[in-house]
């Protein structure tokens, strides 16, 4: 009887230890996303000021590294959730959330790669608006990270962050529309205009995706509080 109970006790201890490890992996994953957004803003700043310098390339490889770490974490979390049949009720939701967050990160990385490869020629008159757009996009992603953290730790606080995601995304949309109008009002060749428009979209993409994720998160939250 006694040894059986001991192993049961030990099993529970390992269960909690594994749980703790998994919790920190999810936290880590969210950290990577948040860091990528911050590096993304820094990289766009550098590009606008100095072009595709060595410093810009360094930021790009930093985001690359963060992305591949985040991928590893995502796979590990997903495998554990299913292998150990954890949170059977919300498992699918958590899986969906993490994969969508990962694609936000991928969009940040993709945007920077486009800068590095295509090296767009952005006239100085648009720099301020590109910076403003980047600012709103990063704010959107940051708010989404906070909302996601709240989903795991403090479900009641999710709406507090969610409305900010929506707000910043709207702001980003406004700036991008304004910027596109301004670009097409110039006398630049159409090919140049189109190129500039593409980069507005490259920067804006993470915010659009963030909004989609936030919409899903809202449903997951309702599911968990009902």
């Amino acid at each position: 009887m006694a040894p059986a109970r001991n192993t049961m006790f030990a099993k529970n201890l390992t269960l909690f230890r594994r749980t703790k490890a998994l919790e920190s992996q999810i936290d880590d994953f969210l950290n990577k996303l948040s860091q990528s957004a911050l590096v993304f803003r820094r990289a766009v700043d550098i590009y606008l000021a100095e072009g595709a310098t060595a410093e810009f390339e360094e930021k790009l490889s930093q985001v690359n590294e963060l992305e591949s770490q985040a991928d590893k974490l995502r796979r590990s979390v997903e495998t554990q959730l299913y292998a150990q049949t954890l949170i059977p009720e919300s498992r699918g939701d958590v899986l969906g959330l993490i994969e969508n967050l990962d694609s936000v990160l991928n969009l940040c990385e993709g945007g920077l790669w486009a800068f590095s490869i295509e090296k767009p020629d952005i006239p100085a008159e648009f720099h301020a608006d590109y910076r403003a757009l980047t600012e709103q996009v990063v704010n959107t992603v940051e708010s989404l990270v906070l909302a996601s953290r709240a989903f795991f730790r403090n479900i009641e606080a999710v709406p507090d962050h969610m409305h900010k995601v929506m707000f910043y995304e709207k702001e980003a949309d406004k700036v991008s529309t304004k910027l596109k109008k301004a670009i097409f009002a110039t006398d630049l060749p159409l090919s140049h205009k189109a190129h500039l428009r593409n980069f507005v979209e490259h920067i804006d993409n993470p915010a659009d995706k963030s909004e989609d994720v936030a919409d899903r998160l809202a449903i997951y939250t309702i599911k968990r509080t009902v």
Partner: protein
Amino acid sequence: MELAVLFFLTSGLFLGWSLGANDAANVFGTAVGTQMIRFSTAAIICSLFVILGAVISGGGAAHTLGRLGAVNALPGSFMAALSAAVSVYLMTKLGLPVSTTQAIVGGILGWNLFSETRTDITTLTTILSTWIICPILAAVFAIILFKLVDKLLKVTRLHLLRTDAYTRLGLLLAGAFGAYSLGANNIANVMGVFIPSSPFTDFSVAGLFSVSSTQQLFLLGALAIAVGVVTYSKRVMTTVGGRLLPLPPVAAWVVVVAHSLVLFVFASEGLEALLLRAGLPTIPLVPVSSSQAVVGAVIGIGILKSGRTVQWNVLGSIGLGWLATPILAGILCFVGLFFVQNVFNQQVYRPIPYTVSDAVIGHLDRAGVPVAGLREHTNRSYGSAREFATVLDGVSDLTAKGRDRVMIAAEIDEMLVDISRFAELDGTWLTHDQLESAYSLASESYRHRWQLAEALAAASPDWRMLEDNRANKAHNKDLGKKLDSLYRAFRKLR
């Protein structure tokens, strides 16, 4: 043990098996259905704790069931248990929240009717009232628990995964407690009817602890329940667990705990003693329905969470269960007894004769029961409770309570204090004085149980009932059980 005895026990084992197959789902259904706990883990924990609960604290509720009707011949017990088991099976087929409790009560009433034995109305009302109280109490427990847990979760702000891990552990612990309570409360349904005709005798293990014949019966019944859990409950758990209770894990935990608490309070003699000492009203120890406790708890959470109105169709099906199950079991038992008696020539009951002797009149007079109307019926014998009851109907100055006392006093139960039967008594339970005084009555015969009790009381103060008040209730109850064990040992007809 004779082969016939074993055969008659099989219906009880069948009832135990179906209880295990069905009610284990109430305890572990959601946990297994939502994949929070593996079935193998659930089955092992459930079996183990059902057995522990049945053997350690199964006695309380069994006592009440025994008072409802003491089925005194094995073939009769067989039929009562069989009719209950068949009713449970049929009602489950119809998809009603069935209860072995209601089935076995119906079976016992069927036997009472067939054997023309007196049904103790007070006990019957107690049992009926607990059936209504049980789901209500479960709902109240669930509401309180849910509010507490909800508050706790908000304050502690646990991580989703941590909540999950704790809930998992909580479900396991609650399941163990639930299985223990289920065993303690419902073993009486499975084996209660066999107690008066138990084929086992008490024995003690190396003088350390003693195992009563009832506990041996309960162990056997609990093993049958465990077999039911292991062999058949998986299906019930995976289908019923998900369908009946689409609850999030934390709410499922609340339901299991509320259900277990209800079963526990209706089974625990320890709790009863505690309440008595604290001067609080006690809860009758009655076997209640595990399924209905679960339904009650779910309704409680439903009321709390959505403020939706009570689902009347669910309540309706409970009400139908209250009514249909005992009636069906009663009819099946009555018809079955007729067959067993007339087709298979088995004695399904030992007739209980009654007589109003001068000794009985004197005993009743001392107890303050008006005896004037009884005198004209003295020194006549009556073959059954019904026959005697018809006679008592003609006695005008008796109250309902007085009537019950006359019935008990006039019942003939021939006993001989036989030295050779002392081996069946539990030497560690009875005090030295109690044993000595019983020895001093060796070779004496008694016609009525109260006569032996009075003789014992005269021989030793240890055998005297104390004044009937709250403080003495536990003592008197214990003494009553000790007297019962003496009656069983010294009874001439067994």
